């Protein structure tokens, strides 16, 4: 069977500034792919090229077996897209918005609609202008996830959502995957995407980071625990400060195994410690540092 998405050697530049550089990507049908990367890495541009909203400069792109340059409408008929920077029609009620959104794709999953309506508990009879940012995002998610299509491209679907709603959406996406739907999503919540996705791709400076480099960065991060020292305590020997966050959390580098180092820390020194849970920004810094050190 054809992959849902096949991209080879994709280049895209805006003026002189390259945004996507030789991007290769394969997404199998029924796969849930997570795309992470810092702001400006090219995630949204990649999604826009896939949907035929932005023309590519070079490379081969096939979505559901079709070329977005020539069959964008056919692709969009079988795809639901949630843009990253997405506003709402404030003058509509929630119900009017959904009627409008569903009107373009007549087949919808009513069971999913019922589940999401229950979970989101939105006041659909009210005007969208009265909604909070999180409620607007829930409404947009309803409009994007309920139509029954083959491919869902979701650019930061967890934007403005609190943790409990993010977990609810995660469960729904899992259910959709079991139904054979292909889902490509981007997020800044690395841990949550990792827990959800079949595969994770890290986009940095317009190109996907090879898995070996990503694994090396993760290994490097394993030696960089995050700790919070008790008031008045000093950093024990065996570790050096790498960064200090605004809330006082220290990112430290240990010489050996961070768990072994933590066991040697005197009682009453450390309030909390976090080991082996990479954050997107840390991963980004390590990858950038590796990139700078590369010959």
């Amino acid at each position: 069977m054809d992959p849902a998405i096949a991209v080879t050697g994709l280049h895209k530049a805006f003026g002189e500034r390259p945004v996507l550089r030789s991007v290769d990507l394969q997404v199998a049908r029924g796969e849930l792919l997570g795309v992470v990367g810092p702001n400006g890495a090219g995630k949204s541009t990649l999604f826009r090229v896939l949907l035929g909203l932005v023309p590519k400069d070079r490379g081969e792109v096939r979505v559901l077996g079709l070329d977005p340059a020539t069959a964008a409408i056919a692709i969009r008929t079988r795809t639901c897209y949630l843009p990253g920077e997405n506003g709402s029609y404030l003058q509509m009620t929630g119900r009017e918005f959904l009627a409008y959104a569903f009107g373009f794709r007549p087949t919808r999953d009513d069971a999913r609609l019922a589940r999401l309506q229950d979970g989101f508990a939105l006041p659909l009879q009210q005007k969208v202008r009265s909604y909070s940012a999180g409620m607007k995002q829930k409404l947009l998610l309803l409009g994007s996830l309920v139509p029954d299509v083959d491919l869902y491209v979701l650019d930061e679907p967890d934007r403005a959502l609190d943790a409990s709603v993010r977990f609810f959406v995660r469960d729904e996406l899992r259910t959709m995957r079991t139904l054979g739907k292909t889902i490509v999503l981007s997020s800044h919540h690395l841990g949550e995407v990792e827990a959800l996705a079949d595969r994770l791709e890290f986009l940095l400076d317009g190109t996907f980071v090879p898995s070996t480099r990503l694994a090396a960065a993760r290994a490097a991060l394993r030696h960089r625990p995050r700790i919070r020292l008790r008031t008045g305590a000093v950093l024990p020997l065996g570790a050096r400060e790498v960064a200090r966050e605004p809330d006082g959390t220290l990112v430290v580098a240990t010489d050996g195994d961070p768990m072994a180092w933590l066991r040697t820390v005197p009682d009453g020194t450390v309030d909390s410690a976090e080991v082996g849970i990479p954050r997107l920004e840390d991963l980004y810094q390590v990858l950038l540092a590796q990139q700078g050190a590369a010959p």
Partner: protein
Amino acid sequence: MIAGKTWREVRVMAFAYLVILELLCVPVLLLWPDIYADLQRSALMKNLGIDWLKRIGEGVTSRDEDIAYLNWCAVMLFFRSTNLVGTAAAVLLGTGLFARERENQTFESLLALPVSRGRMLWQKVWPPALCLVVPVYLVNASAIFWSRQIDLDLPKWELFLASTHAAVFMLLFFLLTTYLSVRLRVQAHVAAGVGAFAVLQIGIYLTQRIRPYSIFHLADYEWYSPVLAGNTPAWQMFDPIRSHGYTTWLLLACLCVYGLTWRALHKAVP
């Protein structure tokens, strides 16, 4: 779906526009007998210094009241109402069509719909275009009724021809606004752009020597007066080869601007 949404957005404004046009029309028609008497007594209208104003003055003070009334209607129903109010309505209706989508960050969602850009443009344009054009016919048709209240008659066919020309003229302004709405990102910039164009055209119109180069020259008193009087037959309005064919030129200009808008929307990126 897009057309339905656009209609919901413009319907209130369209209704307000219809009411304003009608409110502008009724008193100037019903008060005509008094106005005509006043005009007859006043020497001002006959001694206006500017040529085109003088011609209007002579027209509305004609000794033949039927002709004077037709000229009055040419000034009040068309030169004033449709040119000024109609143009303002065209700008108001067209400004937000696409620029508002950008301002509200819904433009990308719009472009991502499974609808071709050509169809998208058509569905965005026809509801406000109808809202703009239909009131012109309705209000001018109502002028026939109001005229009968003062025992005067307006020629139906000539009124229809003049309304058609006025409608096409307003459509041109509306399409120019829509074009800028696709090209520019902020509604205020679109309004400023069309406003600057209109002010420039009015400035040209008010300058005696270059007046024929103003777009308003295509739809002024001197155009509508002969149409209403039956001196400009339909073929002259529409035949650009054997006559001036202004209405056809305006229609062609509308098509050109629509084509440019279509092209701009095809190239638009989120």
